[in-house]
């Protein structure tokens, strides 16, 4: 009997040892986050969204990476860089490092990676982004030139010279973007499309892919070959693709998620009472587009009147409630650029303008609609604005909601009077908001056209960084907003994150809402 008990004891002890070893999370612990959606791809050249970007930052590193506090460029694959005197050429000095499988990464790897990204055959959805910076990229992507047209020169094994389309002061930050990713061409050649499977995966970021179960989870673990591996503290990161905000918020409350990247609108009130609710201004604007070519919105007086009759303060306090910031211009405030004052609010003046345009007290105003994509939040905002215009100007507008892709098509085709829109800046420069509205621009759904505006935007693109360039951009914004009022800015977004910063360090709020996992650690 004693022998049996002893054997049982040993077996149980061994079992518990094995189990506890299996559950061990290493030194830094496991970090679980809601990534919002299943990624479109893990191949950095084929991605285009926020969930994919979060995974990209763990698995890959471009020439530069993001500073966790400011989201501006810090050394990544490149340990240093130098701008030419006229700001049109950057020379990157690469560090001597390797892929996760030990294959060295050289300047040639970077050049070939970019050639892959921009090749028409790959059909990368974000190929337009490098084309905004890199000389020859647009021509090559359009099939009008070969890869030799690219302004990328391998000086030696670890030196790369990059020629820009102009003296773009914000170009350096752009190199942290996934469209400038460096990819393991040797692995892609070997495994084809399957190179992103966990068994075949090769990366150069702080983490490597461990598992990928579609619609369930993606896990990554530290990359032992990463040049700055000692800075990586977490032992595992789990990305959950949860689209239902209520489910993920409940999981966060239940301790099943460590970082929740949003809060359902109807639960913001309760979330705000918690000390792990982190709100921060974002480089993003919520606005309404007027169809500048359709009556009565082809008259700037009408556009101005409608905009001046909306109480933004009440909108952000009573409707959106998450602490958004009232907006009267399209560009959110950023370092060195204050943004325009805009028209402000003045109901009496709005009434006068409307009367001047031929609609005294709203009489005779045609039946128009506000178009928005199906969402409770957009609907509440539209209802508020509908009410404001009715009370303040005596005009009735109808509301039309459409499913996302249908709404996009309607908007693009100009089949609307007023449509909701939102824009998140790609980089920290006013240009990312202003170049949308040049005549014939792909994103110019307001169909705004002012040659003077176009000229100012083009002029700024050729200017050196500094106050003069910002003054030119400000002049353009004055035209767009104060003079022509092509669109109606409503508020600047804020990001909402839930993370217990008493437990996790290395996570900082910033205007780009970019939070590299490399820096996160358990306190």
């Amino acid at each position, binding site marked *: 009997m004693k022998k049996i008990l002893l054997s049982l004891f040993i077996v149980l002890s061994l079992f518990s040892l094995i189990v506890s070893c299996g559950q061990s999370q290493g030194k830094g612990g496991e970090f679980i986050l809601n990534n919002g959606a*299943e*990624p*479109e*791809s*893990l*191949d950095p050249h*084929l991605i*285009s969204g926020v969930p994919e970007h979060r995974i990209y930052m763990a698995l890959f590193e471009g020439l530069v990476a993001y500073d966790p506090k400011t989201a501006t460029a810090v050394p990544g694959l490149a340990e240093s860089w130098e701008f030419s005197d006229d700001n049109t050429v950057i020379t990157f000095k690469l560090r001597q490092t390797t892929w996760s499988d030990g294959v060295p990464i050289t300047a040639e790897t970077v050049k070939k990676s970019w050639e892959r990204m921009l090749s*028409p*055959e790959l*059909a*990368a*959805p974000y*190929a*337009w982004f490098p084309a905004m910076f890199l000389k020859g990229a*647009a021509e090559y*992507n*359009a099939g009008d030139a070969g890869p030799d047209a690219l302004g990328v020169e391998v000086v030696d094994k670890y030196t790369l010279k990059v020629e820009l389309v102009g003296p773009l002061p914000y170009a350096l930050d752009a190199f942290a973007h996934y469209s400038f990713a460096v990819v393991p061409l040797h692995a892609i050649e070997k495994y084809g*499309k*399957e190179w*992103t*499977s966990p068994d075949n995966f090769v990366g150069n970021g702080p983490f490597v892919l461990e598992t990928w*179960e*579609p*619609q*369930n*989870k993606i896990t990554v673990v530290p990359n032992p070959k990463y040049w700055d591996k000692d800075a990586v503290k977490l032992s595992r990161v789990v990305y*959950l693709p*949860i*689209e*239902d905000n*209520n*489910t993920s918020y*409940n*999981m966060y*409350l*239940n301790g*099943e998620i460590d970082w929740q990247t949003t809060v359902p609108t109807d639960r913001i009130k309760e979330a705000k009472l918690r000390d792990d609710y982190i709100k921060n201004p974002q480089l993003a604007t919520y606005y309404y587009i007027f169809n500048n070519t359709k009556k009565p919105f082809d008259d700037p007086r009408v556009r101005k009147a409608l905009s001046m009759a909306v109480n933004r303060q009440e909108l952000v306090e009573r409707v959106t409630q998450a602490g958004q910031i009232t907006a009267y211009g399209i560009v959110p405030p950023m370092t060195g650029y204050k943004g325009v004052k805009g028209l402000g609010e003045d109901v009496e003046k709005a009434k006068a303008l409307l009367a001047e345009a031929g609609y005294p007290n709203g009489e005779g105003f045609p039946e128009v609609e506000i178009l928005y994509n199906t969402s409770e939040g957009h609907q509440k905002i539209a209802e508020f604005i509908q009410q404001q215009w009715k009370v303040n100007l005596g005009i009735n507008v109808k509301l039309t909601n459409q*499913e*996302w*892709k*249908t709404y*996009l*098509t*309607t908007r*693009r085709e100009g089949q609307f009077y007023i449509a909701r*829109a*939102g*824009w998140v800046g790609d980089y920290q420069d006013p240009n990312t908001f202003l170049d949308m509205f040049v005549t014939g621009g*792909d*994103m110019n759904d307001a169909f705004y056209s002012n040659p003077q505006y176009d000229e100012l935007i083009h002029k700024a693109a050729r200017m050196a960084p500094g106050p003069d360039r910002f003054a030119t951009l400000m002049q353009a914004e004055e035209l767009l907003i104060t003079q022509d009022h092509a669109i109606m800015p409503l508020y600047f977004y804020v990001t909402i994150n839930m993370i217990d910063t008493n437990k996790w360090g290395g996570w900082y709020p910033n205007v780009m809402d970019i939070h590299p996992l490399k820096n996160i650690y358990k306190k």
Partner: protein
Amino acid sequence: MGRYIFKRFLGLIPTLFIIITLSFFIIRFAPGGPFDSEKKLPKQILENIEKKYHLDEPLVMQYLRYMGNLLKGDLGPSLRYQDHDVSFYIVQTLPVSLLLGVISLFVALILGLFTGALSALKRNTWVDYTFMSIAVLGISIPLFVTGPILMLIFALVLKWLPTSGWINGRGGWATLIMPVLTLSFPYYANIARLFRASVLEVLQSDYIRTARAKGLSVRAIMLRHVFKGASIPVVSYLGPAFAGIVTGSVVVEQIFRIPGLGRYFVQSAFNRDYPLIMGTVVVYSVILVVMNFIVDIFYGILDPRVSYKD
């Protein structure tokens, strides 16, 4: 009988062909394309992508290409999830939906048969009223209400169960409890009501009266005669129920974060991911027609009055 089964089986092919053809063209009528987003793609980029996926070809040409590939067993690439083909995502996720569906149907069946029979035997007593009231709730409360209520009670308030996830996650098999209960509830309710009515009908039939007259015990009558006879409507309900429970788990998969095919079905429609929508439609159609086919065959085995001659 073999000849009948073979002929019925051949009949499935035109049905599937019509479903696939109609679906192919109908989904293209929806406004918006797979590559539309807030940040509009420049013309050149869009052209490159459309060329890559043959979307620049005439629709009829695309249809012929799709059908040709389908016959070869190739469901094509996903336009949204670009690292794998549609078949990969189906192979990864269908077993999850099937497992959830089978367990839910099994639970619904066991509970439904038991409470249905008990309600019939204890007709118009408090037992009957209780079970039938629960069944009415099951039919009238939608899944998207049942699920979150269970989550609120058992996960957030009592903290007995994980809120969501799948069996290979941290929560393990406990993650199955709430989705199974949610998904099986309406099916349980239907089976219970169906079986109760059916048992009552059989109990009043002549052959049961004969069996009673012969002096058979209640237990023997129930097991040997009533259950078999009364199960016919339930069996004929099981085919569509199985198809429904597998294809209809979309909401439950969404609420409880289950990595099943249903999530792809919903998302591919929103994303206008044509090959993935088609892939899920093909799978769901096959499940639906095959289940109806199997039920037809079983129906005859259970009820000798059904003839296989046509």
